[in-house]
């Protein structure tokens, strides 16, 4: 795969939120405003890039049988570093809202998923790029959801009012709203894919590497 393709893979073709559907817990919880989404996205991007880099560097020394515990240790280390750095330097308001979700990045499926599916089999540079791309895709998806939710709920974007006297629909700020907005996003993405297939005269089928049959977590020896 070319350098650009490795990087852009996570942003669109295998977007963690919209296509792979991994890491839904923080997605639904933290996308209540654009600012929170940005903070969470950046933290996850750092963890993804760091853990991918270290795991691909040390993949030759990790015995296959204990690789999952090893990955978790590496990921947890990066998450704790992020947590400490945020406590020390991030604005207190962001700390308060993201507080409990930062430690949960450890169990975010997308981080372990990329370690297992990509970093354990690919070179250091490619893995770093994959981590950055995936993190960026995650951040963008979170920000899109966050922006839509924040705008409909309060008429603001990044806490700045865009439309004065907006009739706020507070439902969108609650987890219920997250499910609703995500559903609309997914429907639109699927519709555009189906239409593209139809235009080229083919029947739409999900790509093979994304279906459950070829997921290698089930192929443990």
């Amino acid at each position, binding site marked *: 795969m070319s350098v650009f393709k490795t990087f852009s893979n996570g942003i669109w073709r295998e977007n963690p939120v919209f296509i792979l559907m991994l890491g839904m817990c923080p997605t639904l919880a933290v996308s*209540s405003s654009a600012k929170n989404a940005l903070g969470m996205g950046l933290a996850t991007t750092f963890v993804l890039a760091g853990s991918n880099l270290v795991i691909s560097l*040390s993949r030759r*020394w*990790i*015995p296959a*049988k*204990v690789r999952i*515990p*090893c990955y978790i*240790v*590496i990921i*947890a*280390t990066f998450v*704790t*570093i992020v947590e*400490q*750095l945020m*406590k*020390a*330097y991030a604005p*207190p308001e962001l700390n*308060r809202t993201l507080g409990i979700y930062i430690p949960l990045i450890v169990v975010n499926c997308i981080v372990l998923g990329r370690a297992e599916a990509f970093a354990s089999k690919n070179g250091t540079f490619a893995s770093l790029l994959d981590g950055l791309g995936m993190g960026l895709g995650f951040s963008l998806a979170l920000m899109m959801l966050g922006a839509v939710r924040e705008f409909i*709920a*309060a008429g*603001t*974007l990044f*806490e*700045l*009012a*865009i439309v*004065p006297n907006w009739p*706020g629909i*507070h439902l969108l*700020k*609650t987890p219920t709203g997250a499910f609703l907005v995500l559903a609309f996003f997914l429907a639109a993405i699927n519709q555009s894919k189906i239409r593209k297939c139809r235009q080229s005269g083919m029947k739409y089928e999900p790509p093979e590497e994304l279906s459950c049959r070829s997921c290698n977590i089930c192929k443990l020896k």
Partner: protein
Amino acid sequence: MKDILKLCLSLGFFCAVSGGALAFVNQKTAEPCKRAEEAERSAKLKLVLPAETTETLSDGSMEGVQFFRAMDVNGKLLAYAAEGISGKGFGGELRVLTGISPEGTILGILVSKHSETPGIGTQVTDRKVTRSLWEVLSGNSTSDPFPPNAVLDSYSGKPIQQTLSFGSGENGVMGVSGATISSKAVLAAVNSISQAWQKKNAAACLGEK
């Protein structure tokens, strides 16, 4: 057997390395973490205390309520502050920070921590003004660090020595219908300060005798 040993050793190696990395980061961030925490607390205290306050000192705690003293440049006592907790918010714990004059009048209150429902409970708990994009772009925006909130402002000027309740009387404060639980939680937190204040003063009187 040999296999297991190898697995243990390699996993142990990764744990040791990450332990070392974490110890390093922890040591490096310990100081800034503490500073950030203190800065946040004193920034919040400043909002409920008189503007002349230059120093705030911890003044012990009583029944889970934390007390602070506010001093001016010359070290004269200006006011007290206290943080009360109520566990009965709609989303769990709710903390209220209160500025108290030396005579025992509430100067101003602020909800320092809560997990209330956005848009419903936050009507009671948040002091927030939304600036519009146009105001910011045109440079007309003024950011008030202590924006008004009718419910929270109704506590100002009330005596801390007495138990407050909802209503229009002398010790009556406002609530929001539709956000009853959040309103009650704020009231409960302030009343917990009120009780701790009385006990603290009683203890101080005994001490003086």
